[in-house]
């Protein structure tokens, strides 16, 4: 059953599921998971779309008709061309151009790069921070744990968008600042997820055994405990990438995100917004479609990963 909980609900959900006995690091497990994953057609479609999007954004400098950040390549005479019209240079703008004469296809490819990059970076950093905090809290326990979890709860009780807005209002614009803001609002999800599974794993025999061997504490926590808390973390992180993309695009749309010179998808949409009412739909619509397609693709993959990595559901 596809039963995606919203991201907020996913954390405890995934955390409650007891992962299987200590991860068999063998290849067979990976192969089995891959096989299970591929059995869902929608997940495969999602994965293919996602891979294409990542490849397309990585290869943007080579495959895009123009470099939208290079002002010398832009011709203001090309502005607001409808999809299919020709630029002054002769190339066809299949998706039209924006108010500065940027080819939308190129802008989308470059924008995707920024959107995906920001989201991936933020997710990786946030999950590392969150997972470390979560696993340590679970391992140490006691007051440290309850204090950390209080902070997590408090953080999660406020809408991410508001916290991010305020942070960016304080920091100012910039790609690094957007990433920082996303990390600040997202780490708590991972901390909660990992703590949940670490609490379960902590009581298992292999941790007991590792402790009996008098291995150093950090080694027990990071080499033994943490890897076994990864499956739910991966699931949450996947869905959170989509969430981070949506959040970044929203922030950029509101004008507090990435700088104007390097527009992400959200900012392209914001630019087009001004022209929407005069019927120039393409500037907003196409970046929006790209955004939506990527988000849906990630969700499909995340949904399937959840089924695959959740031993409670897999038979």
């Amino acid at each position: 059953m596809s039963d995606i909980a919203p991201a907020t609900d996913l954390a405890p959900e995934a955390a409650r599921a007891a992962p299987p006995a200590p991860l068999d690091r063998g290849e067979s497990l990976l192969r089995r998971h891959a096989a299970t994953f591929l059995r869902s057609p929608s997940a495969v479609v999602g994965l293919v779309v996602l891979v294409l999007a990542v490849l397309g954004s990585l290869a943007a400098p080579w495959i895009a008709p123009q470099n939208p950040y290079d002002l010398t390549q832009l011709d203001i005479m090309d502005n607001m061309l409808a999809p299919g019209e020709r630029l002054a240079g002769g190339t066809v703008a299949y998706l039209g151009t924006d108010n500065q004469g940027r080819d939308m296809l190129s802008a989308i490819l470059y924008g995707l790069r920024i959107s995906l990059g920001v989201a991936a970076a933020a997710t990786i950093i946030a999950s590392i921070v969150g997972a470390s905090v979560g696993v340590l809290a679970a391992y140490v326990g006691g007051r440290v744990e309850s204090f950390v979890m209080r902070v997590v709860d408090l953080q999660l009780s406020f809408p991410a968008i508001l916290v991010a807005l305020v942070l960016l209002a304080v920091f100012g614009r910039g790609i690094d600042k957007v990433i920082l803001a996303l990390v600040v609002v997202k780490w708590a999800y991972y901390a909660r997820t990992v703590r949940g599974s670490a609490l379960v794993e902590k009581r298992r025999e292999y941790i007991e055994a590792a402790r009996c061997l008098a291995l150093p504490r950090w080694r027990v926590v990071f080499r033994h405990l943490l890897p076994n808390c990864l499956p739910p973390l991966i699931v949450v992180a996947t869905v959170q990438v989509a969430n981070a993309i949506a959040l970044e695009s929203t922030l950029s749309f509101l004008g507090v995100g990435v700088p104007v010179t390097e527009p992400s998808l959200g900012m392209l949409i914001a630019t087009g917004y001004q022209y929407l009412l005069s019927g120039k739909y393409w500037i907003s619509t196409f970046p929006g479609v790209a955004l939506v397609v990527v988000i849906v693709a990630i969700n499909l993959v995340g949904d399937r990963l959840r089924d695959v990595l959740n031993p409670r559901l897999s038979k």
Partner: protein
Amino acid sequence: MLVYLIRRLSQSLLVVAVMATLVFLAVYAVGNPVDILANPDADQQERAAITARLGLDRPLYEQFGVFIWNALHGDLGRSFVYNAPAVDVILERLPATMELALVGLVFSILIGIPLGVLAGLKPESWFGRTIMSGSILGFSLPNFWIGLMLILLFAVELKLLPASGRGPTASVLGFKTAMFTWEGLKHLILPAVTLALYKAALVVRVAQAGTREVMLQDYIRFARAKGLSPLRIVGVHVLKNMMIPVVTVLGLELGSMIAFAVVTESVFAYPGMGKLLIDSINRLDRPIIVAYLMMTVVIFVVINLVVDLLYAAIDPRVRLSDAKG
């Protein structure tokens, strides 16, 4: 009940206090407001004068004390842009946002509960599955984009509804509201739907899960054995049980609706406090930002309190156990 209320109230006050500290630290302690306030050409003396006037030369704890003292008296600073007390500027916009959130909430219930219940009654059917897939879209798609598409469809193409702004207000029971004029409602529909979709998706999921669970209960079988009509079983027995999780979720989400209104109001150029926040951030009108945050925290806390009380009203079991404790 009274003990419970007092306990909840003190918890709420604690949260407000903690948030006040955080907001103070985040907004006041980072950066120097003088940079924004002072004329860029101002010399050292002028800057010092401003610093002294704002009390920025005093130690942090003292500034904090002043901030809290003023806040307790309802003074959260003066807006640079509007040259008026920040609280007043926000309060002026509050009704518009509340109206939007309220209508949005109603929409999300009207959309979410019927769909969720339907999907829960027939989880394996094609429409049950379609509803659930649709709900995934509902909360994974960026809200502002949905708003834009609605504008494109209903305002630009079909020309049915206005694309932006708030309709004329009328005075009802002393409140100026746009909910009771046709023009006002027309202006509300698109932003409220946009705001509602995310919550509706959430309500669908909660309602679906709740319905599925309730339908398996013995009391539903007993109700059927009594010969009750499906309408009564679903409308009374299922709905009332299912409302418990739904109210909890919706209540907790009402606060985030006010936060999400920031986005929706920007898309629809709707003159509420969310748009004010964005404008203030862009204009660096710091007192407004602080005042907005403090007021939002208070609204959040109040909402959570109300939800808890509502919860007690729906579930007799909660009512009783709290009366005892």
